């Protein structure tokens, strides 16, 4: 059996067979009897349609009693699949080991939004929990009828339903429904994506009865990767497949005007695919495709260099016309309060473009024949890629099957969706399955970027040193210049290369905090992209979209206020923070770190090697995080070592402390990398960050010595996102610690040695 068949046959029907289920061909014609049964029974042999209002769309019980879950959000390596299995096993009262989960296949799962905004547990888990609770209710009702015992007198343990006090009267989930499908309607809210919600009649368990949720169950996908047995999207091969590579212009915005196919005629099987701005090559062998992409002679249009000089970036943002302004919150009357101020403090902060720079550049495989397409992709959002590939190919989305396969790192709207669209165009053009993978320069220079921005903050103080007004404004490129997914050609490079006009969206964000200033205004403004077509500086979501930049500024500024008033930074925050859970994380982080109360900066160190500590705290939706950073700064080189972090994290109910611990730790390290090193470089012609030398990230010698994590558990509060929240306080905490150590406030990221050294002089 080839890999292709293994993957392609990964259907519900096969899975039921594998589980020893009653085998009923899904495509078999219904007889009068089965049709009649399907109308009324809660268990049916024929699978109901894959719709959000059908319980069978989420959960089935196999003949051997194992339970399969079908999930429309992707696990990008943070253990989400384990958490979801725990939540379902808990509600169903089946052993965790009996759970299986199948993720992101458009043939077997619903569009639950994909990996999106840290909602895997918050939204996806919520739905799966409700579905599992309903499945248990239905199964207990079925058992009641079978055993002749009222449902209220039945207990369930490990998938066995028995009469309370009379264990001889029993049946099992496997006996009740194993191998058949639920035929149970749910109360669907009519929405797809993240807000999809379809509860049944059942109420979920009381958290005090949990035995599986909250346990540190390890991930089960790691061994396969460590022993080289698991496939990534990059590793899928199908018969007759050819390799594709894309060719991007040296000057962003240029399009090919002449392509000399004879320049690659010596390369076996090499073919050019050229349509308007779209230019790629294919070849039977991968190395030949790479050689052809390099050798192809192309004459490009005479495009004007579209970008400002990099040093002028922040001036450009300052001066650019505002395209959209959004005042998120205006409490009191900020302008009036400023007129009464005894003192005004203000500051401006700058954040660069950043790249996802995934370890593996974008890759996808598309097989298109007889009007049907199959796409293997490591995207965060397979159901949206289904729409995008369908649109590119001009076929209904029902004729596109996207098989999600794990990919190389995923931190938002990366180049994964661009690769799927490119592969679709190439596959259609050459009539063969095409696997396309970008080269490193394309993965770094041409992926969607986190937006660059400036942030201005002002505070009005009265004569007693109280903050009487606070005014915060972010201005930058939009977080949705291209959208969060590739469902529309206009949001992919292929679509734009083929002439679909960009429809640049507007979005940024507000600081997440509960500072109770009497007069408070937070706002954002977006500006137009630098290039409106197939731009390597198109901006989109990257891990905790706009969170690191907004809170680098907002939490640095709070620290500036504390310093100006000569108040300890923790104490200053506690004066104004209103939310009890916010107060709890700040206190927990401070206490665990051994925080000594005093104002910053220290001012007691001499010599080149100095140390300091800083705090930052944030909300991210309903999740709260406080971080204390302890840094060493070498004044002679400007180099910062973020030596220790103490993190207090509250995301409500903790499903799996093992997964949560890793999620927090990895957020902290990646955000440290973004704070200290990451900046997309460009010149007037193009992005010049093309590899790991020109886009450096944190290395092993720079990793912290210690990350100490306090996980605050609230079993009674619905679980909320942890996939990104710990990223956003890190830049502010580091900058505040650098100020504490040096007395110098760094207001621009990244805090590279060169920049810091210059600032310290």
């Amino acid at each position: 059996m080839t890999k292709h068949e293994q993957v392609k046959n990964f259907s519900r029907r096969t899975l039921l067979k594998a589980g020893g289920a009653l085998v009923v061909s899904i495509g078999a014609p219904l007889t009068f009897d089965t049709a009649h049964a399907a109308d009324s029974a809660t268990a049916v042999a024929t699978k109901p349609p894959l719709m959000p209002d059908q319980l069978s769309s989420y959960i089935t019980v196999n003949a051997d009693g194992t339970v399969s879950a079908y999930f429309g959000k992707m696990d990008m390596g943070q253990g989400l699949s384990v958490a979801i299995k725990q939540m379902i096993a808990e509600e169903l009262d089946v052993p965790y080991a009996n759970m299986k989960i199948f993720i992101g296949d458009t043939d077997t799962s619903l569009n639950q939004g994909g990996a999106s905004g840290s909602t895997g547990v918050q939204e996806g888990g919520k739905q799966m929990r409700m579905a599992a609770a309903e499945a248990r209710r239905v199964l207990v009702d079925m058992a009641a009828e079978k055993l002749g015992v009222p449902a209220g007198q039945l207990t369930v343990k490990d998938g066995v339903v028995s009469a309370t006090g009379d264990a001889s009267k029993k049946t099992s989930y496997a006996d009740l429904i194993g191998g058949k499908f639920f035929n149970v309607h749910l109360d669907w809210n009519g929405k797809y994506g993240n807000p999809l919600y379809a509860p049944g009649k059942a109420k979920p368990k009381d958290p005090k009865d949990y035995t599986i949720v909250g346990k540190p169950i390890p991930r089960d996908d790691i061994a396969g990767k460590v022993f080289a047995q698991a496939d990534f999207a990059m590793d899928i091969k199908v018969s007759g497949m050819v390799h594709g590579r894309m060719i991007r212009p040296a000057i962003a915005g240029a399009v090919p005007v002449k392509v000399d196919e004879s320049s690659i005629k010596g390369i076996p099987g090499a073919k050019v695919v050229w349509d308007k701005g779209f230019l790629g090559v294919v070849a039977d062998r991968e190395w030949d495709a790479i050689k052809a992409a390099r050798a192809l002679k192309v004459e490009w249009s005479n495009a004007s260099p579209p970008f400002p000089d990099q040093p002028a970036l922040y001036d450009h943002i300052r001066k650019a016309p505002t395209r959209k302004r959004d005042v998120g919150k205006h409490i009191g009357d900020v302008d009036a309060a400023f007129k009464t101020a005894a003192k005004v403090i203000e500051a401006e902060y700058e954040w660069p473009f950043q790249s996802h720079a995934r370890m593996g550049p974008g890759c996808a495989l598309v097989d298109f024949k007889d009007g049907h397409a199959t796409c293997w992709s490591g995207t965060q959002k397979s159901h949206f890629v289904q729409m995008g590939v369908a649109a590119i190919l001009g076929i209904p989305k029902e004729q596109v099957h996207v098989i999600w396969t794990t990919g190389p790192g995923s931190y938002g709207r990366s180049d994964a969706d661009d690769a799927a669209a490119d592969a679709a165009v190439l596959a259609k053009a050459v009539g063969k399955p095409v696997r396309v993978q970008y080269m490193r320069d394309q993965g770094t220079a041409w992926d969607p970027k986190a937006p660059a921005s400036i942030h201005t903050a002002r505070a009005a103080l009265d004569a007693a040193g109280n903050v009487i007004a606070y005014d915060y404004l972010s201005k930058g490129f939009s977080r949705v210049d291209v959208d969060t997914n590739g469902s529309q050609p206009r949001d992919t490079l292929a679509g734009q290369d083929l002439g679909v006009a960009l429809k640049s969206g507007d979005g940024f964000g507000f600081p997440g905090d509960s500072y109770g200033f009497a007069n408070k205004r937070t706002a954002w403004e977006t500006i137009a992209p630098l290039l409106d077509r197939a731009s390597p500086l198109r901006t989109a979501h990257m891990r905790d979209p706009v969170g690191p930049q907004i809170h680098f500024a907002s939490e640095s500024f709070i620290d500036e206020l504390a310093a100006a008033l000569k108040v300890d930074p923790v104490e200053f925050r506690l004066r104004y923070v209103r939310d009890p859970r916010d107060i709890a994380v700040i206190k927990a982080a401070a206490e665990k770190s051994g925080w000594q109360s005093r104002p910053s900066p220290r001012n007691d160190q001499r010599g080149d090697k100095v140390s300091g500590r800083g705090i930052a705290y944030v909300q991210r939706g309903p999740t709260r995080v406080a971080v204390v950073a302890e840094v060493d700064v070498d004044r002679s080189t400007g180099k910062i070592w973020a030596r220790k972090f103490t993190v207090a994290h509250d995301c409500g109910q903790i499903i799996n402390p093992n997964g949560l611990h890793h999620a927090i730790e990895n957020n902290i390290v990646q955000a440290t990398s973004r704070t200290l090193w990451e900046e997309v470089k460009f010149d007037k012609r193009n992005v010049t960050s093309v590899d790991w030398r020109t886009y450096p990230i944190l290395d092993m010698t720079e990793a912290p010595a210690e990350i100490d994590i306090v996980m605050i558990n609230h079993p009674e509060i619905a679980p909320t996102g942890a996939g990104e929240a710990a990223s956003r306080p890190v830049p502010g905490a580091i900058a505040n610690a650098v100020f504490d150590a040096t007395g110098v406030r760094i207001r621009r990221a990244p805090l590279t040695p060169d920049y810091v050294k210059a600032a310290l002089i």
Partner: protein
Amino acid sequence: MSKQFTLNVNGVDRTVEADPDTPLLYVLRDDLGLNNPHFGCGLGQCGACTVHLDGKPTHSCRRPIAAVGDKKVVTLAGLGTPEHPHPLQTAYVQEQVPQCAYCINGWIMNAAAFLRDNKKPTDEQIRTALTHIKCRCGTHMAILRAVKRAAAMMG
């Protein structure tokens, strides 16, 4: 022009036809079905393609097949198996190291060679030895824990 090459990969002689300038990475992945070494940069900067050549960690993305010769090639799949794991593989599972795991060839293959040659390394020695390997997901802390755990297992 395509030529025939015989490679010893994970203890087995394999014969392939390829252009002499083809990087070993593509031969392993596309001709020999060993998907695990990954393309990360093609520049020898990240480590995702690392294999051992006669025990020495080597960027397979930069090594033409014609320059492999009779050196023994070992990939992550050849380093150990679930039945006979390398201590680093055991430690990686126990410490739940990876997020996406795309980078692990670089870390495990380099750390394996380092631990073979350096018993009881210090934290600083481990960090320095692995400086040039990239992990984008930020799993550095867990990597350090796993390498130290493996070092302890290897005595």
